[in-house]
């Protein structure tokens, strides 16, 4: 079998790839898990977009539906205590936003959102049943963003088929890290 035949096989395989229940439009088209509102999801989007905002060359975490990702992961992959931790974090953020300017967190200017989360990171809500609310949401924000297509291909560099391994490559200024 020559290389072209191999690549054709690979392409056929890609067409045939059946990835469980994943909808055609990807994971962000998965339904929002039961028990969560659109405004709670929007608040998570805003928190995620504050942790990882848009920068030159790549969008922020809010644009990869990070709120939906955090809710789906929390529901599917973590014990019930994690959902409770997310609720406690959202309540804490809402409370601090109110105290800061009697506004909703997503409506605050960027600098205020950042300083609110910096303060919250210094004094986060306590862990309960083994889940730390801030750490849970921040870790999932990083996972969701850097493994999303935009995060992997724009914030990082992604090469699905490198073809070879080179052990010594000069790192030039501005070179981004490999996504995988």
């Amino acid at each position, binding site marked *: 079998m020559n290389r072209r035949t*191999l690549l054709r096989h690979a392409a056929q395989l890609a067409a045939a790839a059946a*990835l469980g229940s994943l909808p055609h439009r990807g994971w962000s088209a998965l339904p929002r898990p039961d028990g969560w509102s659109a405004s709670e999801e929007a608040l998570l989007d805003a928190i995620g977009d504050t942790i990882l905002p848009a920068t030159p060359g790549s969008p922020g975490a809010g644009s990869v539906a990070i709120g939906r990702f955090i809710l789906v992961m929390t529901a*599917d992959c973590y014990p019930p205590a994690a959902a409770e931790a997310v609720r406690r974090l959202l309540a804490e953020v809402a409370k601090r936003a109110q105290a800061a300017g009697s506004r909703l967190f997503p409506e605050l200017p960027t600098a205020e959102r950042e300083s609110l989360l910096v303060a919250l990171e210094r004094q986060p809500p306590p862990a309960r049943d083994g889940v730390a609310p801030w750490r849970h949401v921040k870790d999932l924000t990083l996972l969701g963003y850097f493994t999303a297509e935009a995060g992997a291909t724009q914030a990082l560099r992604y090469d*699905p088929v490198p073809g070879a*391994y*080179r052990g010594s490559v000069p*790192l030039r200024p501005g070179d981004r890290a490999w996504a995988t």
Partner: protein
Amino acid sequence: MSSHPTTPGARAHTYDAIVVGSGISGGWAAKELCEAGLRTLVLERGRDVQHLRDYPTALANPWDLPHRGRLPRALAQANPIARKCYAFDEATEHFFAKDAEQPYVQEKPFDWIRGYQVGGKSLIWARQTQRWSHHDFEGPARDGFAEWPITYDELAPWYSHVERFVGISGNRDGVEGLPDGEFLPAWEMNDAERAMAGRIEGAFPGRRVVQGRCAHLTEARPEHLAQGRGKCQSRNLCYRGCPFGGYFSSNSSTLPWAARTGNLTIRPGSVVESILHDDATGRASGVRVIDAATKAVTEYFAKVIFVNAACLNTNLILLNSKSRRYPAGLGNDHGLLGRHVAFHNYRGSLNASLEGFADSYYSGRRPTQPMMPNFRNVTRQETDFQRGYMVFFSAARRGWTRGQGAPGIGAKYKEELTRPGPWGIYMMMQGETIPRYENHVRLSANQRDPWGIPQLVTSIGYTENDERMIRDFLAQGRAMLEAAGARDIRATDDRRNPGLDIHEMGGARMGRDPRQSLLNRWNQFHTCPNVFVTDGACMASTGVQNPSLTFMALTARAARHAVDELGKGTL
């Protein structure tokens, strides 16, 4: 018990050879027997997995996976054993047997990782392939715990035979304790690893750092292209199955090769219950099979039987093969069947950071890493423990995960995480354990699996020798990392259960003395010579090397012997 088949129905179930299991050694048995012209039936307890067709996640990007590779909680909770395996994730779980499929009794904790499908664990192996040296074959007799009936020189041509077909990358390093083979070009070390290797070799004369040898096609030669396999693309998504055939598996290589002869029949969904012994002829006549789905019982017959069900299942089948002649299991006149099970000691590891090399990076994803051949007790006893260990290490720049648990918010934090991080080092041991009579498997007297077969009881544990070896490795590893210039060195004993190494070996060991072993120098039962065992169950000791290459070489050698003996009419 049954005699040779004479009825028309039985004749339709009769082959020249039966191979139990389609994993890395069963695939080799099938290839060699089919090529020699034997009509061969391969029995596989799991489902069919066809190369290319049945690799559903092979080309998935990270964002294509609903949970980005993480395990959904229900899957994790249902598989407290399988999920411990480092390779078990959202993209690979379909190639691992689930805990509920085949219960067993852990008299002592043992994490039994299984792959039930055509191809077995050859789809999900770690693909590291090193030859044993004469030290590994002679050491157990020197240390008085086992005696190999073969020498390195006898196996060397079979290593070559296997290596050419499989495709093994590596350097010709000239290390006496780790013989060179038939190599494709080696993978490169990165700049940090190359520097570390030089510093370690300089500080510890006699110790060597070589690039790992692995079953990846760094170059596709005509014999590989003829198998339909191409060059490894450095994706390092191997555990999903490789659409390029870049690494060796039964599915990509030996089974389609065997099928091309026209002599191969593969029957998935076939749980082998026992081997049938004909007390009149003193030979095995065939095997009894329970259909995995319908539980219908069938029998198949052949002149020669290869048992390659993977170490513990091979032991289970043999122990369950009871006849008037062998009331305690096939060939088990001395009670040694299921005894002397050993494994590899992976408990010790170290993490560290390495300063410098800020302007150096790499590209592509490499399926192996540098390694150090055993430097303990090689030619004589030197330490307070017996035998030795191999060391693996790798250096890589940390990625975005360094931001998890680290403080930071906003654009500067994000931009920093998009750059390659500082260098981190991971070092681990792969230690030989000594087969002991007490470390054994046996059949449960009262608990049965879903097919009515007695459950396996595992009674396998560590010894003080293993504890001493771990302490030595952690001290030596620290000293070598310090010599290499590493900082922040953290040593860990993860106290993992035996089994998670997935290198279980023994139970039907080879030997010269029929009173001390089950199998002869050709992997035949001393007392039932038309049954061959050539998977991990045959091993009289474990060596420090990743074992699959040795299983393959032993299988090819035994298959040739079986064909020769059939030709002479002695089987």
